[in-house]
């Protein structure tokens, strides 16, 4: 049961409470560049999820072998290898995605989210937990990018996943970098507000439950005394 809770916490942290895009503000470059459409956002998110999971697994498996003094160069070599393999794979198997990502595919190597999770989690935990952490953070990154992609594509191009739905109406500003920053800021504000409100309600509910138990215990104690 305790293990289930631990894994549940890893998932919840990665997707919601420590969402890498909206809470930790990591990986801003691909977030702003690849969210002009929902499809490209999804493609980037899935690529990062794959690299993050695999890099976490490999680095966790090698954590006892790699000396502390050279851990960063070793991590970067591993991450760069995985990105290169992914690049070769996409070029062969999914060329449209490869073309869509362009220069931002090799830039995944320097995505601070991947190196950050390797350093903060994978180097200190087992392989299975590190894999879960990679999947959770990758899923959180993907969800965040897709949300931004949907908003920017809807407002900037009047379409939803490539399907035109506003009959030609669009506000091109939201397809520009300036629009990306504004949408990003608003999404962070909304996300943080929702999470904090939910956490506050949860705390109030727990406090009331505890008060209810305390009062109930006291009433019973008083009865017994009487």
């Amino acid at each position, binding site marked *: 049961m305790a293990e289930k809770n631990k894994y549940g916490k890893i998932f919840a942290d990665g997707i919601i409470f420590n969402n890498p895009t909206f809470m930790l503000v990591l990986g801003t470059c691909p977030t702003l560049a690849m969210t002009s459409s929902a499809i490209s956002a999804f493609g980037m998110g899935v690529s990062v999820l794959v690299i993050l999971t695999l890099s976490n697994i490999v680095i966790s498996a090698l954590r006892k072998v790699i000396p502390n003094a050279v851990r960063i160069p070793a991590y970067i070599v591993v991450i760069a290898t995985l990105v290169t393999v992914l690049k070769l794979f996409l070029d062969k198997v999914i*060329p449209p995605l490869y073309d869509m990502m362009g220069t931002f595919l090799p830039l995944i190597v320097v995505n601070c989210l991947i190196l950050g999770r390797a350093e903060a989690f994978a180097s200190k935990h087992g392989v299975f937990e590190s894999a879960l952490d990679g999947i959770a953070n990758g899923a959180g990154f993907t969800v965040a990018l897709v949300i931004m992609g949907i908003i920017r594509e809807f407002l900037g191009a009047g379409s939803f996943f490539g399907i035109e739905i506003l009959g030609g109406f669009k506000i091109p500003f939201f397809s520009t970098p300036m629009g990306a920053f504004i949408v990003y800021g608003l999404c962070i504000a909304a996300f943080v507000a929702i999470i904090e409100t939910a956490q506050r309600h949860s705390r109030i509910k727990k406090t009331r439950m505890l008060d209810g138990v305390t009062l109930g215990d006291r009433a019973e104690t008083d009865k017994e005394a009487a």
Partner: protein
Amino acid sequence: MKAKEFFKSNSFKCILVLLIITLVCGTIIAACAVLFNVSDEERLNRSLTKIYAGEVPAYSDVGVYTKAGEKLEAGSGRNISLFHDKNGFYPEDETELNKDEKERMSAYTAVIQQVIVDERGTCLVKSKGKGCGFSGGSVTVWVQFTLGASAPERIDKVINVGNETDSSQTLIGQFGDDFFAGYCNEGATATVKGGGWFVTDKMSVESDGNIDVVSSGATYTSTAMDVAVNGALYYVREQLPSGRLVYTAEGGKA
């Protein structure tokens, strides 16, 4: 430190681990490069599918020729030098510029790498704007021309093939269809017919007489695009009267 102490030290362990990781990763990358290799023919088919947006007609590779009519070896490419100032592009061998004027202008090179003519009579030229992109990188495009009797009539399509394995390709963010459509619209067609050249204006899209301008946010890379397209345009204008840009069924491929 003695040799024995060194081999037992943490420094040696660090170097050894890094070397082993690098060797293993290098081996994995080499194996994947062979496993996921994309041949030149496959790349060409992808480009043609993108250009024709559907069924690819029969075509023949007519080869690349010099001005004198000498056919170059496959894969070697022909360099075309272009001078550039704010008023436009000037092919070096057609430009009556003195030494001072040439020194004032920027000199660029377009490399014509491949020329294909299809059974419908359109001509595709693979052209590289060399060394003038972002960080001195290059840009490679396919340009599709509709040919007239003695001169090209218009550019039908331009696509970027910059993401090839050629390491000289410049990093390109997102040059969307809007950018490339600037080479194919009415103003661009007037430029092609009127003997003009393409010049990028980073601020706006305008049609100004014989010079058409295309908007983009990346100055160097869009200049490189113009060099590549102008190089292809120059080559077609030069070669078309010679009768070399003709589809032949013997050399045709479906």
